[in-house]
């Protein structure tokens, strides 16, 4: 009775009309009072998540790890970090989530392990170790020289000398994260075993971290290689064969034409993040010009029917600026990272609310655009209440501070002593937990949380947002971002004013002549569409979503 599919109607495309919610277990809720969030605490908060209306939880890595990279440095693929609980706690959590019809996917880092992983310890111990070939070794540090260094702030090279092994080892990320050697069939088989282990526990899929880097090949930039795609197809075939209705979500921070390769012919990952659109949304907002968004959407190739983009405003990493031009990056830094502490690698380590100067209209507008685009939105924990960040904490910790549940001690996150908390909760006068917390916002009908809850509900009532086609509908006023979504009998027109001033725009809606726009929040009917351009006026940062309905059926 506790099979994974037991609480769901079978639906291989569920992820296409789902709202995702990304959770850092350590930061969500402390169930045992030790100062760190854990799986039992997270299970306690499922009622809240069910109310919020999300369909799928994405967990940041929850495996044993020395935590030098937020858990992306995995030291055991088959267990739960002791701070978070046990495998049994995990199973109970997944089961409790499923009973609320919430699915669970988890981060999985296939590319590398922690240097603490027993595999690496064994590998470095001797050239004859059976695990030696599970990693990538060299006597020289000049191989694969066309591969870029990703963590430019900390890593001088992709090769690091290991005095124990007496060789250099290859790593695309931190030097404490040696890359696994996918040329070795044992590694490929082992990683499939890892997937099966968690799928058998009932998990609904994986976010595959850092997938472009699985294989290396001399003379290439060692990203997106054909061997990597071949392996992903094998993973997908295995999942399809034995685990229906599961999803693989690729983290491939690449240009759209390269990312779509990860969908294959619908036989690799079902989802991939749409990285390039994200900085352009922030750019468009600041410039009051929809052009950057239209352009990147135009440049985005079509994807297979059984696939979907993952869309997000912010996540647990820095707001990445890898997929923009140098000029655009300078612009983004100048506009969104005035304090140099806010920069990290090629990105900006800030949460959504502070990025938007805590402007409620801006936060709503950005969510409206996010929810209107083709793909599945991914919310980041805390952003639904407009949590802030702490730029004085190192690395990306500033955006991974404890969730604010109440205005009480430790923001209701933990009953431990303040000094015992894994990171201090925010206490500043604007974003601190005494003013920004779930309890207060639940009680305030006009709060961001309550608004977002209604918005999630609205989106879920209309599968067109997840499943429908996208057609740009560019008005002559470049400050207005407008497009049409269609699926089955539903036609939806989404129009957004990016400007901080009131605007008017004329839309060419002649193809819909005779239909009536009905605003979706309040079901207010607007004048019918005729042959002439349709005039709409907007308040500052205002937006409308309209269903285009037949005159007689308008509710």
């Amino acid at each position, binding site marked *: *009775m506790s*099979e994974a*599919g*037991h*609480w*769901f*109607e*079978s639906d291989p495309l569920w992820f296409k009309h789902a709202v995702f919610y990304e959770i850092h277990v350590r930061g969500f809720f402390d169930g045992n009072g030790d100062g760190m969030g854990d799986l039992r605490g997270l299970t*306690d*908060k499922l*009622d*809240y998540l*069910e*109310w919020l209306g999300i369909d799928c939880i994405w967990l940041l890595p929850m495996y044993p790890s020395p935590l030098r990279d937020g858990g992306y440095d995995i030291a055991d693929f088959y267990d739960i970090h002791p701070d978070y609980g046990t495998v049994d706690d995990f199973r*109970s959590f997944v089961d409790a989530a499923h*009973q*609320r*019809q919430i699915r669970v996917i988890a981060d999985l880092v296939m590319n590398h392990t922690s240097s603490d992983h027993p595999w690496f310890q064994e590998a470095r111990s001797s050239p004859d170790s059976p695990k030696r070939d599970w990693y990538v070794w060299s006597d020289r540090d000049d191989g694969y020289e066309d591969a870029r260094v990703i963590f430019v702030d900390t890593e001088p090279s992709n090769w690091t000398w290991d005095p124990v092994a007496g060789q250099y080892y290859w790593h695309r990320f931190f030097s404490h994260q040696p890359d696994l050697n996918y040329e070795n069939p044992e590694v490929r088989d082992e990683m499939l075993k890892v997937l099966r282990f968690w799928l058998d526990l009932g998990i609904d899929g994986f976010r595959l971290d850092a997938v472009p880097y699985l294989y290396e090949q001399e003379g290439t930039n060692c990203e997106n290689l054909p061997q990597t795609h071949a392996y992903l197809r094998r993973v997908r075939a295995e999942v399809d064969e034995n685990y*229906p209705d599961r999803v693989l979500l690729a983290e491939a921070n690449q240009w759209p034409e390269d990312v779509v390769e990860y969908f294959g012919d619908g036989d690799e990952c079902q989802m991939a993040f749409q990285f390039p659109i994200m900085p352009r949304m922030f750019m468009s907002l600041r410039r009051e010009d929809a052009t950057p968004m239209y352009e990147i959407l135009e440049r985005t190739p079509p994807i297979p029917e059984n696939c979907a983009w993952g869309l997000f405003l912010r996540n647990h990493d820095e707001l990445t600026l890898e997929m923009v031009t140098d000029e655009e990056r300078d612009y983004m830094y100048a506009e969104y990272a005035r304090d140099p502490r806010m920069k990290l690698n090629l990105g900006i380590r800030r949460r959504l609310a502070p990025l938007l100067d805590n402007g409620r209209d801006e936060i709503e507008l950005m969510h409206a655009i996010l929810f209107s685009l083709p793909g599945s939105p991914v919310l980041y924990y805390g952003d639904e209440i407009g949590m802030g960040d702490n730029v004085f904490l190192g690395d990306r910790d500033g955006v991974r501070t404890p969730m604010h*549940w*109440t205005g009480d001690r430790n923001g*209701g996150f933990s009953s431990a002593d303040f000094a015992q908390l894994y990171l201090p909760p925010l206490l500043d006068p604007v974003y601190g937990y005494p003013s920004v917390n*779930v*309890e207060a916002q*639940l*009680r305030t*009908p006009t709060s961001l949380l*309550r608004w977002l*809850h*209604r918005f999630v509900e609205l989106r879920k*009532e*209309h*599968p*067109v947002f997840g*499943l429908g086609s996208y057609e740009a509908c560019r008005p002559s006023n470049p400050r207005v971002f407008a497009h049409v979504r269609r*699926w*089955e*009998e*539903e036609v939806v027109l989404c129009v957004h004013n990016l400007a901080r001033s009131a605007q008017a725009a004329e839309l060419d809606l002649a193809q819909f002549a005779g239909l009536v726009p009905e605003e979706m929040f*309040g*079901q207010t009917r607007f004048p019918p569409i005729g042959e002439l351009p349709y005039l709409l006026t907007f308040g500052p940062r205002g937006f409308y979503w309209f269903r285009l309905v037949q005159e007689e*059926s308008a509710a």
Partner: protein
Amino acid sequence: MTLVRDLVCALPEEGLREYVLTQRWYGSKSEEVASVRAVDAFPLRPGDEEPLLAVAVVEVRFAAGTHDLYNVPLGLRRGDGGFASVDGWSAFDALEDDELVQGFVELLREQATVEHEGGTVQFCTVGELADGLGSVRAMGSEQSNTSVVLDERLVLKLYRRLEAGVNPELELLRFLTERGFPSIASLEGWAAHLGQPLDATLAILQHYVPVRRDGWTLALEDLAAGGNGFVPLVRRLGEVTGRMHSVLASEPSDPAFCPEEPSAEALALIVARLDEEIEQVFASLPDLPELEPLAGRADQVRDRLREMGSSGPLGRLIRHHGDYHLGQVLWTEDDDWVVLDFEGEPARPLRERRHKRSPLRDVAGMLRSFSYAASASALERGIEPPTGWEGRARSEFLAGYLAEADPTIIPDGSALERRLRLFELEKALYELHYELGHRPDWVRVPVAGILQLLDEEAV
């Protein structure tokens, strides 16, 4: 084996649509329907002997692209006469056809496990099924399900809306039956599907309880007759309810039933949900004279809600009835109460109906039902209830309830009153929403209830 599946899935849309959309159990009458088709079928009998017996999974798809699934067991016979035909076969609703009902009963008797390509239909019984369940009669008067009485001994109840997961009624009846709770129609068996396209409870088999009156009829008759006969029975009803909750809260080792402490936001979530419901209901109130007294009072209702949902404990959360009112309790020939229909409010999704919540929701449901009976008597039949009738019923019920309910599951003192009012308001809003959609003539009743909650002193 696949013959029947192929036939069912090939049933023409027209006949199926006409049939399904006009049934009492079809629950989305106000939504615009895009299509109706059988998306799957589970054969129930091997071979191609007539009549073929199967469960059709019928998908009703709405214009927005969402859909509902319905459970339509049917028989196929050669020739004409059914509600739809394909390839010379006609489809008949299995619950309206004695021969086909008997087929169902046989499967239960055999405790059959019928496999098909995508899964299995399992028939289970609690004990041995009695012989000679020959006579079949329809139960009638149901909304979301279909029941037939077998030989005046058993009731076969078929769930029409299919939702993934175990039906809460099966869980609750099984739990209460296993613990020997006497005030129910005990569980005798069930049928469930496991596999594609969903795991779901299809039907249950219950003991049939000969009835003198259901609580609602009893209350209205009593009101018409002067109002002295009913109130004395209400104390007993409170006791039965209290004992039911105590039993439901008695199993700390079963995760589906063990009582839980509410999370820190539990009360705030209830209030937030209700607050949005109030906003929605008031924003879309039609122009009816009966609604006049509520016009412009949304903010007042929301303020009152905040008082009811303010500080103080919520009590522990348990599995409970979920749709408790006078229509769900029967006064039997043994002069005692029996509780029916453990499915929860049919308009809510299954996952919500399975939630553990405060048992005070059931208490509030019954209190609202007294108010409903009094209002219905006055408004619909022109018989004013005797002074203090509702108040007496209320205090008798509460006294009986508090005497028998496990004290660890309910808050005490003023918090109890505030929480009761909160759940009464929740119920009244549900009633208003329901009546607006189904019985506009009755809208006055929940309106009176909401006004009463608005105008009384804050507790």
